[in-house]
C-alpha cells in the first residue's frame, strides 16, 4: 500500500520540512473540522496553493496529500449527509448505515496512520509513495526542466 521509493534528487532540509508539513496540515485540519469533511481538503488545497512554486519534492508531496484527502471527502460527505438525514428526516438507524460508518471510519483510520507515517518519513527525506495516489501524483507533477 505504501512504499519508500527513490527520488531523482536528495531534498534539502527546508524541502523536507515543507513536504512533511503538507501531511501534518491535513491531520490538524481533520481534527479541527471533524464534523465537516471538507475542512481538511480546503486546508491541504491552500497549503498546496502556497507551495505551488516550491521545489519538485515539496510540490509532489503537497499533491499526494491533497489527492488522498479528496477521496476521503467523497466518502465522508456521503456519511455526513446520511447522518444529517437520520437526525432530521428518517430517524431510522439501519444496518446499512452502521456498516457504512464503520467502513469509512476504517478508511479514515488507515489514512490517518498512513499520513502520520508519511509525514515522519518525508521529514527524514524519504520519498513515500501511496498505492494509486503515488502513481497519480507522478502523472500530475513534473520536475521543472
Amino acid at each position, binding site marked *: 500500500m505504501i512504499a519508500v521509493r527513490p527520488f531523482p534528487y536528495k531534498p534539502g532540509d527546508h524541502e523536507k520540512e515543507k513536504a512533511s508539513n503538507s501531511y501534518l496540515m491535513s491531520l490538524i485540519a481533520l481534527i479541527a473540522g471533524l464534523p465537516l469533511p471538507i475542512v481538511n481538503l480546503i486546508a491541504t488545497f491552500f497549503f498546496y496553493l502556497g507551495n505551488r512554486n516550491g521545489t519538485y519534492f515539496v510540490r509532489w508531496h503537497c499533491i499526494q496529500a491533497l489527492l488522498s484527502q479528496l*477521496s476521503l471527502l467523497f*466518502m465522508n460527505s456521503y456519511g455526513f449527509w446520511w447522518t444529517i438525514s*437520520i*437526525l*432530521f*428526516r*428518517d*430517524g*431510522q*438507524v*439501519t*444496518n*446499512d448505515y*452502521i*456498516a*457504512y460508518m*464503520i*467502513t469509512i471510519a*476504517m*478508511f479514515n483510520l488507515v489514512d490517518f496512520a498512513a499520513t502520520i507515517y508519511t509525514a515522519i518519513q518525508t521529514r527524514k527525506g524519504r520519498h513515500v509513495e501511496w*498505492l*494509486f495516489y503515488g*502513481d*497519480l501524483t507522478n*502523472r500530475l507533477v513534473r520536475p521543472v526542466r
Partner: protein
Amino acid sequence: MGRILIQAFLLIALFFGAYNMFRQVDWVNLFEIRQTADKTEKKLGDMLWTIFRKSDREVKDKLLTQSLDSILVKLCDRNDISKESIKLHILEKDEVNAFALPDGHLIIYTGLIAVCENPEELAGVMAHELAHIELDHVMKKLVKEIGLSVLVSMTTGSGGGEIAREVARTLSSSAFDRKQEKEADIAAVDYMATADIDPKPFGEFLYRLGGKNGRMSEYLSWLSTHPDSRERGEYIIGYAEEKSYEAKPVLGGETWSRIKGELAEE
C-alpha cells in the same frame, strides 16, 4: 495509465468489499438500537397521551368505546396488525379531528364521530390513522419537525413540558407530507377492502368535508391537517373501485343510530 486504473479499481473494490462485509452483520440488533428506539417511542407516546388526557375528558361510555373497538378489531385482525399495539382513545371534543401519537395511540374526538354519516366513514378515518401508525409516519414526522436529539432529551427527563406541548400540537394540528398522506390513504383503502368494509364512503367523507367552508370549517381540524380533501376523496373512490371486496356493514344500523343519538344529546 492502465496501472493507475487497476489501482483505483482495487481501492474501490476494497471499499465496497468492506462495506458489503459489514452489511452482513445485524448491527441494529447487536447494539440494541431497535429496543432503545422502541423505549423512546413508548415514553413519548405515554407523555403525549397524558397531555391530551389532562386537557380533554376521555369518553368511557361502553357503547362508544366497544363499537369503535369492534371496528378497530376488524381492521386489525384481517390485516395482521396486532390489536394490542393500538391504544384507542375517544376524547369528548367538538373539534372534527383524529390523529395518531407515537407508540400506537390513536385519538378520536367525538366531533369527528358526529359528522360521520355512516360507520364506514368512521372506519375509513380510523384505517387512515392506523396506516400512519403502521407505516411509522408518526415518529418520522416528529424526527423531521422536532429533531431526534430533542425527542430523546424529552424522554430522558431534561426536556421541558413546553416542548412536550409543542410536540402534542404538532401531531394533532399539522399535516403529514403529501406523500405520507397518499400512502396512508392507499393503505387505508387496502385495510378496509381486506376487512370487507366498503372504502368508498371514506372517499365520499373526504369529498364532502372538502366542500365545507365558512364557520363550519373552523371546527374541521382533520380537514386542515388533511389538505386537498376533494381531490383525495376522488382518488380514494377511484382506487376503491379497482379493489375486490365483499362489503359488509361494519356496525349494525341500530348501534350506529344509538351512537349518533348519544352524541346529539351531548
